[in-house]
């Protein structure tokens, strides 16, 4: 029973790590597209943000998962004057993606810290399970 409880905790931590990694991937995409003025439909790239949600598995454990990768439509797009740019409108303005490298980097650090916290928990639980297994020796 105890061993089961510990392994159960490890799958919760694993779900946390997977969710944080998905968040880091989205941040990486945002940074990569920071200057992307045409995402394929003639419009500039809109930064994306992950949305987490809690899901209960059959054993009642509270796993976390990414429920949605939503476009951030609240942060305004920046318009710069660059008449020579191929994507400039008739007034010479280009709409740039609403990606702020500083914001993305701080978000990346936050995701990385959360990932590490889950990893630490996972190690702690593994350690406890190992010690419990030593009982029979």
């Amino acid at each position, binding site marked *: 029973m105890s061993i089961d409880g510990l392994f159960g905790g490890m799958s919760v*931590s694993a779900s*946390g790590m997977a969710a944080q990694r998905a968040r880091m991937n989205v941040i990486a995409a945002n940074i990569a597209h920071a200057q992307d003025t045409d995402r394929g439909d003639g419009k500039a790239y809109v930064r994306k943000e992950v949305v987490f949600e809690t899901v209960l598995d059959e054993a009642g454990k509270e796993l976390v998962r990414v429920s949605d990768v939503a476009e951030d439509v609240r942060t305004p797009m920046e318009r710069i004057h660059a008449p020579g740019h191929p994507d400039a409108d008739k007034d010479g303005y280009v709409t740039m993606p609403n990606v702020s490298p500083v914001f993305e980097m701080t978000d990346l650090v936050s995701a990385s810290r959360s990932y590490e*916290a889950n990893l630490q928990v996972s190690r*702690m639980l593994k350690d406890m399970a190992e010690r*419990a297994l030593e009982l029979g020796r």
Partner: protein
Amino acid sequence: MDAIGGNGAMIATLLDAAARRQRVLAANIANVDTPGYKAKTLEFPAELEKAMLDGSVPEGAVKGLETVERDTPMKANGNTVDVDLELAEMGKTSMAFQTLLAVSQMKQAQMRAAITGRG
């Protein structure tokens, strides 16, 4: 009296409680960025703590324990998880778990000594 001494069942019950608590705290940390998630913990009621001191924890006493929402400050997204607090609690629970294991191991060694007549 059972195989590993009078309190063997109690130790097993408490190990179970510690493991369950770790699971609840692990879920808190996994949900640190989930909007609206409320941090939970597994609390031992006063009667159970008293029973622990007496060494008279009834079997299955831990199974009925409910998780309760913890009263920590809420962040802007309605989430109440405090990673530092969770890790500290997990560290404490882990120490308790290992102490129980050590006690259990000592009991086993005593029993072995009694059976073989050698320390």
